[in-house]
């Protein structure tokens, strides 16, 4: 694949595109503090720098989409937001990620406490080999809810929120692995919502699903948006335009001499601005389908 000229850097990696004044035209005003505030975040796997110098704010009750070509670090940044990268040996985060005023990577921060507030839905549906009921009740149970009536109520509410209740209400004690791909992914969403998180991170949640199941999950995201803040990684640009309020475009920088690659945040703005009036030529090339 031809690398556009902009992708090649000679020595020093440039800063991401500055937030210029035109961007403000597209973004609603915010008085409250952002949910996430990332400043100069670089993420390493061992000595490999997967993502370089990412700074962005993620706002409450919005859907923020991360788009970009493969290997640009979208998922890596997403997993930094709830410390899932801790599980990968050798992963390290430089810079500062603030979540509602607290630094996520300060010493003494418990990843468990972080993940209770910031849930995650994965690319491949991964229900537990347990009954549908136990899949949803799992999170509340490990977080201390023992009361059967309370659990019943949480399970029903979560499955209703995930638009799955009517399809499974008569087989709650059947295995979660017996569901179709789209149902299994909605079960995973219900499982995430059952712990009443503040933020839901979604890592390409529809990439394994057909268009109908994808549509249902997109509708579901719109419905739950008023209660949750959602960040979604997607390879599907139509999906980003359909569901998201803001879009962050990531790309790969390649050093010509050493052939070292790293992911950078190229442009971040309202979804309308990114797709209709991209400020960076790389963004323009990507959203118009000429690259990536």
């Amino acid at each position, binding site marked *: 694949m031809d690398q556009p000229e902009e992708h090649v850097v000679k020595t020093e990696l440039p800063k991401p595109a500055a937030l210029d004044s035109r961007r403000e035209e597209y973004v609603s005003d915010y008085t409250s503090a952002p949910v996430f505030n990332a400043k100069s975040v670089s993420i390493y796997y061992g000595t490999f720098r997967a993502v370089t110098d990412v700074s962005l704010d993620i706002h409450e009750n919005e859907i923020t989409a991360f788009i970009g070509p493969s290997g640009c670090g979208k998922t890596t940044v997403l997993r930094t937001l*709830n410390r*899932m990268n801790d*599980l990968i*040996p050798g992963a390290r985060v430089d810079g500062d990620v603030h979540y509602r005023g607290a630094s996520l990577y300060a010493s003494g921060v418990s*990843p*468990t*406490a972080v*993940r*209770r507030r910031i*849930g*995650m839905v*994965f690319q*491949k549906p*991964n*229900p*537990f*080999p*347990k*009954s549908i009921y136990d899949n949803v009740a*799992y*999170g509340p*149970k*490990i*977080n201390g809810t023992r009361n059967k009536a309370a659990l019943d109520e949480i399970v029903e509410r979560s499955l209703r929120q995930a638009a799955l209740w009517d399809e499974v209400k008569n087989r709650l004690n059947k*295995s*979660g*692995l*017996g569901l179709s791909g789209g149902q299994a992914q909605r079960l*995973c969403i219900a*499982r*995430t919502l059952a*712990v009443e998180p503040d933020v839901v991170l979604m890592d390409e949640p529809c990439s394994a699903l057909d268009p109908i199941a994808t549509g249902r999950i997109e509708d579901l995201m719109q419905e739950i948006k008023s209660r949750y803040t959602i960040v979604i990684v997607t390879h599907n640009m139509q999906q980003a335009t359909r569901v998201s309020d803001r879009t962050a475009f990531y790309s790969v920088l390649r050093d010509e001499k050493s052939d070292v690659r790293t992911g950078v945040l190229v442009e971040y703005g309202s979804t309308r601005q990114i797709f209709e009036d991209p400020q960076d030529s790389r963004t323009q090339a990507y959203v118009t389908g000429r690259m990536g």
Partner: protein
Amino acid sequence: MAVAAEQPPVDLREPAGWRRTKNNVATVLMWVAFVAVLVPLGFVLYTVISKGAPSISGQFLTSSIPPNIMPANFGGMGPAIVGTLEITALSAVMAIPIGVLGAIYINEYGGNRVLARIIGFMADVMTGVPSIVMGLFVFTIWVLHFGYSGLAGAFALACLMLPLVIRSSYEMLRLVPDSLREASYALGATKARVTLTVVLPAAIGGIVSGSLLAVARATGETAPLLFTIFTVEATNTNVFSGPDTALPNQIFANATQPYVGAQARGWGAALTLIAIAFIFMIAARISTARFARYSR
């Protein structure tokens, strides 16, 4: 419009030649291998059943062991059956928890740590230690100080079972996909929770069946018991002290006797032992199927 000419159907069979020859040769070889495995198994089962079945009766399973000179259909193998069940159960109680915990440590907690690699390596080495050496080991460090007992035999059998339990449990834990662990972590679970509520339940069927197979194997071990429990004729209900007996020991003892009656009782003991091991195998199968209830 032209009428389509009648055409012969396409020949979709494998064309004759080197490929078909290879296929036929391989098929024949596989059948030969299958029969080669089946024949000895069939002969063993036939011999043991035909020679052992006449001895089997309610009285045989419960009565005490008579002097070797007594004729067939006199007395039984009660003390040996009791001893085998007691000693095997005791060794399972010792080896299975330690083995499963060891496997959990290696797979879930050890990572690349030196201790985890040492445990894994030692388990592999232990698998290769001849069972008679295990018997000698327990003889030296236990029997010489505290005397023969069922407990000493259980120690020896546990040493044999431990590496098998560690290996089979480890393989089962390794098969649990990381995506399940991640799903649990993403809900705010601690590592202990992830292990106890997701990883272990997902692997439990395989762990139970692997452990039962290890028990079945230990049930039939003779050499480690010869040095550790001695071989006596009377029932010893106290597994913790005093010389004991077990089916493999009695088979060995009776087989070396010139008396027809003793030999017949030996065959009966052999059939009983095979039956006990067989029951463990069946239980392993059932447990695998039972625990797999939610896995499809």
